């Protein structure tokens, strides 16, 4: 097939999409299906690996290689795929439960190793598939079937976890913000190493509207800011607000866009990335975009280099190595 002529349709499988009406997953699927033909990579080299969850149904809908595995283990299985064939583009699709609850350890170690994968974490702050229990990203006090009086566990911040694990590409985007999402995923794909992308995703059934302020056209300008490397961090309906860093107290503040010391995003700075990952709460927007990007050798590059000599070994010589003797 001529790769150049592929379109969105070529990346849609023949399976009926079975998410709930209005689920944010639809938008993400469309964005990915639209993005892939533009990446200039053969379709047969695309592999989507997922765990279990609503989000993890994703691979079924992609007309690529796909593996819907078991709960929490997608990064480990993807690791095997990539190590077996580093030519492949390997995508991990996971949820906040799949990737950060049961799968937290694999997530952490995959990020640490810096295997060349793209990890898309659909964060709806809830366990969708199992009917709405609170997840490790659910906000304090979340009422759910398993926390009828409100949850008492403080949530994880996915991007903070990724940075703490040594993640070298950490980004955040939003399900329905197609252009932005597409750009971030594209950047993740271009990055050699593990690209961790948190996608804020609405679950209209069990956690409807939690991201409404950052998604709604009317409120979004006040509640989110798109950070870009080298650009000042400015937001607000008329771009009137900005973020500054109180360099004494080492914390972020909201200021006017015309202030002198508006913070300029530097995606190579891990401290800034941590500050931006944590940004939120009353008065603050949340940051979307590439928070951190740092090129370092990927595990699979090193692994392949080591494996380079493969097949040079001589089996007969191995069996006869060391001390042997002849009986005649």
């Amino acid at each position, binding site marked *: 097939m001529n790769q150049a002529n592929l379109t969105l349709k070529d990346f849609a499988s023949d399976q009926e999409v079975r998410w709930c009406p209005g689920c944010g997953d639809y938008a993400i699927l469309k964005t990915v299906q639209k993005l892939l033909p533009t990446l200039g990579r053969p379709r047969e080299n695309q592999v989507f690996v997922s765990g279990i969850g609503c989000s993890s149904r994703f691979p079924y809908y992609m007309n690529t290689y796909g593996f819907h595995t078991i709960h929490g283990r997608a990064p480990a299985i993807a690791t095997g795929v990539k190590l077996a064939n580093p030519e492949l583009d390997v995508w991990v699709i996971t949820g906040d439960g799949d990737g950060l609850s049961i799968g937290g350890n*694999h997530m952490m170690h995959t990020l640490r190793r810096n295997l060349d994968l793209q990890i898309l974490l659909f964060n709806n702050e809830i366990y969708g598939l199992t009917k709405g229990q609170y997840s490790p990203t659910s906000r304090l006090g979340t009422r759910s079937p398993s926390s009828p009086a409100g949850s008492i566990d403080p949530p994880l911040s996915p991007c903070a976890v990724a940075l703490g694990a040594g993640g070298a590409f950490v980004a955040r985007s939003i399900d329905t913000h197609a252009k932005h999402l597409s750009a971030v995923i594209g950047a993740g794909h271009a990055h050699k190493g593990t690209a961790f992308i948190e996608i804020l995703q609405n679950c209209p059934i069990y956690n409807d509207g939690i991201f409404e302020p950052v998604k709604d056209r009317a409120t979004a300008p006040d509640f989110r800011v798109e950070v870009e490397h080298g650009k000042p961090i400015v937001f607000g309906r008329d771009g009137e607000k900005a973020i500054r860093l109180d360099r004494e107290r080492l914390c972020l503040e909201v200021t006017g866009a015309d202030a002198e010391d508006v913070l300029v995003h530097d995606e190579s700075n891990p401290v800034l990335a941590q500050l931006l990952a944590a940004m939120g709460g009353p008065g603050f927007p949340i940051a979307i975009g590439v928070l951190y990007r740092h090129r370092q050798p990927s595990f699979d590059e090193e692994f392949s280099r080591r494996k380079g000599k493969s097949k040079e070994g001589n089996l007969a010589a191995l069996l006869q190595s060391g001390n042997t003797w002849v009986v005649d």
Partner: protein
Amino acid sequence: MELTEEKLDERHLDEREVVDVVVRFAGDSGDGMQLTGANFTLATALYGNDLSTFPDFPAEIRAPVGATFGVSAFQIYFGSEDVTTAGDALDVLVAMNPAALATNLANVVDGGLVIADRGAFTAKNLAKAGYAANPLDDGSLAGHRLLDIDISAQALAAAEPFGLGHKASLRCKNMWTLGLVMWLFDRDLGATVNNLKTKFAKRPEIAGANIAALNAGHAFGETAELPSGIHVYRVPQARSAPGLYRNVTGTQALAWGLLAGAELSGIELLFASYPITPASNLLHELSNRGDFRVGTFQAEDEIAAVCTAIGASFAGSLGVTSSAGPGVALKSEGMSLAISTELPLLVIDTQRGGPSTGLPTKTEQSDLNMALFGRHGDTPLPVIAPATPPECFDMAREAVRLATGYMTPVMLLSDGYLANAAERWRIPRVEDLARTPVKFAGDSGEFRPSRRDPQSLARNWARPGTPGLEHRIGGIESDHDSGNISYEPANHQRMTDLRQAKIAGIAHDIPSQEVDQGAASGKLAVVGWGSTYGAIHQGVKRARGEGHDVSHIHVRHLCPLPRNLGELLGGFDAVLVPEMNTGQFARLLRAEYLLDVESLGKVSGQPFKIGEILAAIHAKCRKEGPAQ
């Protein structure tokens, strides 16, 4: 059946020529007993004896000097024919300190030889070993031959010219001892000398001191006045098929079998594992083999390891993972996925003492139930078990063949004994090994992951990266025809039946069960699996020598079982299954064939002794009637 032991009271050392001998080198972890044993083994192999060895490590990494729980030992059984265990009782015990004596003496036969380093029998060491009086002096060794020499002093003297200092010189005492034992059995020093030169190539003074000690020990035997009854013993050479030989441990043979399997199948292996005793050595062995068709990956845990292996298999390599009981337990959810998606996978369980952390450095066969039944859902898979270290080479290749040929996970059961034990191996010619090439789906025609070979029922395997074969698989039940998700009741039944039939069908593709020793029917069949082979072999041999109607049957394919096994066992009046668990295989045979199979269980972390098998046969024959 109750476990008892019969003493094989063979006072070998009463003769000048003996058929076989068991020697055990025992000392502190720091005394170099493993190295000593390895060199003695090599010399013995070159001498032309058959042999079997077993290193016995303490659980602690480095125990305090002189502690009984820190004794490290190496045992070798060698003889002129058919040696298959590391021996029940010791003919010769080398005790480098009181702790080594205290922990091993009970195992020495009457009239056996004890070689002790008097220099290490200090008041402090005696106390640590719990001796009130010095056993070298208080007559408590009267029933044994005793060579108590101040080996420490002898070694220091021999090493003196090399100027190493006290501590390093003292380290030569193991070589001095080795020299003496070499003399005792007329072994050649040459190979050891070469080994020492290679090992210490950069420290010639250390090599020199060790070689001097080795020679001095040997010379001591030749020249000193030894107590009567201690002299050179001749062990006639084994009659062996012509060929090139080596010693091989179970772990080595397993590693090489995997490499051979990969080469013969034309496939790459990805070996993903997480360290655990006694399975780690396989990881270590393969980590050095990057020049073959294997990549190794140390995962963050066992779940990641099995999942990485599964991912590799999806991508067209063969994923292999390896662990011991606690780790294999963690892999069970992953294995269920591989069964459901019909991906090849190899899971190697080097069993150790359980439950839980149990006895990590000891051996056991108690993971059989887990291998057969330890997953949620109906999840049949082939389970195989090599019987001897050399056989690990063959069974590893068999595992590769079954996994790729039937698109299924395969479990291979080894154990702590098998992994570390070494035996002589006639090295096969690579050209003689059967090729088992893997076929991947091509890009012609309409592809479905669910299409199967009508014979094997294996589904076809498409490698990501192949244009036109894009497809999705997953752990939700899939439609028999399309391979898509299906919640259809009838389809689930059909797929369940198919999974059963596929594995059951393998019975047509494995050798039918043979009888290892004895007739194909009769009074008693002793049926074993895995590493109990050696002891059962010897026990049955001796019983047969005494005229008992008993046969030895050893099963390598535990699931599916060989097709003729039921009929074969039905031909015996009684069936006895010795195994290192509470009767797991016996239960399998009972359910399968409705035969009143009896279990002889041993769960002490120790392999069976020949005398235990023999005693059980005697008891059984007494019950069933006199020997014919």
